[in-house]
């Protein structure tokens, strides 16, 4: 290849624009062709190019290759479209680890026992248990009793409401499919295995709303007791008339809107009072 001496030189402003990526494709190609042939302009490029970005690129490579491999949960949450920071916050949810899994297993166990004990009683047992699982899971997902690093979370600028909703969402997202699966193995009405979601939704919303007054464990326990009382009383009524009607009564088309109203009202109360959650004093 015959390399002729260049007849022109790229001035500093052109080289700077090229290095910053501000030149058009045609001009960039022309500058590159020129640099191949011109030693003087190549040394000009060396002087102009800033070593700092290269250091930055190298640092980010080191950071990327030394970062811990994401867990299966993290990969799954990213697939769901959750932002990276939210994935890290959800991963820390106490109830997603350990105690929560135990709760779900207990629910499945109840459902199995229920299925073995006969359709009528079985459905009632399931109906009593299934809505409680998400309620108790939410009660175990935040607060000083459940989260060993809660004080750090409170002292951070992160919105506690966002953290609580993220965590509650995470536990509900795990609870609902598993409880639904347990419901599906029950003999009897397939309606019951889906309709229990309504009292469950109301229970979770009520727990969050009450947590703006009381510690969330107390709120969860209160809701659980109330649900036990309601389902117990309805079951007693059912005994007097015909066994099994309690399930139908608690999930009848007349009653389901009541759960919806409770959920909406409790959700509104939580939204209005949520800034109360940002003060540790309210929790301790």
């Amino acid at each position, binding site marked *: 290849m015959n390399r002729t001496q260049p007849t022109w030189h790229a001035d500093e402003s052109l080289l700077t624009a090229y290095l910053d990526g501000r030149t058009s494709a045609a001009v960039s190609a022309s500058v590159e062709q020129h640099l191949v042939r011109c030693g003087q302009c190549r040394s000009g490029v060396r002087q102009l190019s800033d070593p700092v970005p290269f250091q930055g690129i190298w640092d980010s490579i080191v950071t990327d290759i030394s970062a811990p491999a994401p867990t299966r949960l993290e990969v799954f949450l990213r697939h769901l479209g959750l*932002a990276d920071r939210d994935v890290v916050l959800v991963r820390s949810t106490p109830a997603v680890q350990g105690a929560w899994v135990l709760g779900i297993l207990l629910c499945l166990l109840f459902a199995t026992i229920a299925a073995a004990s006969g359709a009528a009683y079985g459905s009632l047992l399931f109906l009593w248990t299934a809505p409680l699982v998400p309620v108790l899971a939410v009660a175990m997902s935040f607060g000083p009793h459940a989260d*060993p690093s809660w004080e750090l979370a409170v002292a951070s600028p992160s919105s506690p409401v966002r953290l609580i909703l993220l965590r509650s969402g995470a536990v509900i997202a795990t609870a609902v499919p598993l409880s639904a699966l347990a419901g599906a193995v029950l003999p009897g009405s397939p309606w019951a295995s889906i309709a229990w979601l309504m009292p469950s939704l109301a229970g979770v919303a009520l727990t969050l709303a009450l947590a703006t007054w009381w510690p969330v464990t107390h709120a969860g326990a209160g809701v659980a007791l109330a649900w036990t009382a309601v389902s117990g009383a309805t079951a007693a009524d059912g005994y007097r008339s015909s066994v099994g009607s309690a399930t139908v009564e608690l999930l009848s088309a007349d009653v389901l809107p009541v759960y919806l109203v409770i959920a909406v009202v409790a959700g509104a109360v939580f939204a209005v009072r949520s800034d109360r959650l940002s003060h540790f004093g309210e929790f*301790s």
Partner: protein
Amino acid sequence: MSTISSTSVMFTGVTRRYGNSTALDHVDLSLQPGVTGLLGPNGAGKTTLLRLLGTVLAPTEGRCRILGLDPGSHEDRTEIRRSLGYLPQEAGYPRGFTAFQFVDYVAALKEWTDRSQRHAEVRRVLALVGMEELAGTKMRRLSGGQRRRVALAQAFLGSPELLVLDEPTNGLDPEQRASLRGVLSDLARRATVLLATHQTEDVAALCERVVVLDSGRVRYDGPVRELVAQAAGRVWLADEESPSALSSWRVGTGRYRHVAHEAPLGAELAEPTLEDAYLLLRGGQADDAVAGMTA
């Protein structure tokens, strides 16, 4: 961040009660950039004071200004938390987390959204406390001192303007403590650091100023050297024990060191340390001697 005057923290008549018991009783305190030591016996109110500074607790009475902002307002509190590094006494960690995951979690709480930048910051603070080699180790497998260093690392995230540290040197060996002092004195060139501790030697080595709390009240607030000077002429070395001394113990040479208002028999004067001065402050009549110095 809004205006930041040279006074980073201003507490006026701050009281905190838990039911019938008073943990802090009309405390006045102002803090400027630099390291201030906070000394006091167990139950003196140190942790309550630190929780108030960490914005995790509200005062029952009194006025608090932190970094020129009001922690009672929701917006100001969030703004304070953006400039705060906080190490609580019990900094627990989510179960199953590695050192890296724990600090990464706190960085996510501190609004580091870009993963690459967040990870680089996590590596930086872990290196500051000498824990970069153990970043991938599960927290439960680390020793108490190592866990404390990781907990401390999270407080350094983002080089905060205000560092509130409860017993940061607990469980650290002498070499680690010396290294931590280096890190803290570097940070204190621009940041305000309040360090609660039982280790008077940390305060003597690191702080220009010391605050002594007792039963929820400020007993001393001033330069370390002035508190030490209070003990001049009241620390003695003798061959025998002295029952009248406020405090006495046998030192390595086999002699007895006494902190006492009057010379024990056959005793010679010794150079006082901050520990001697603190014991003197805590002991009976010594309280009157320094009453005039209380802030």
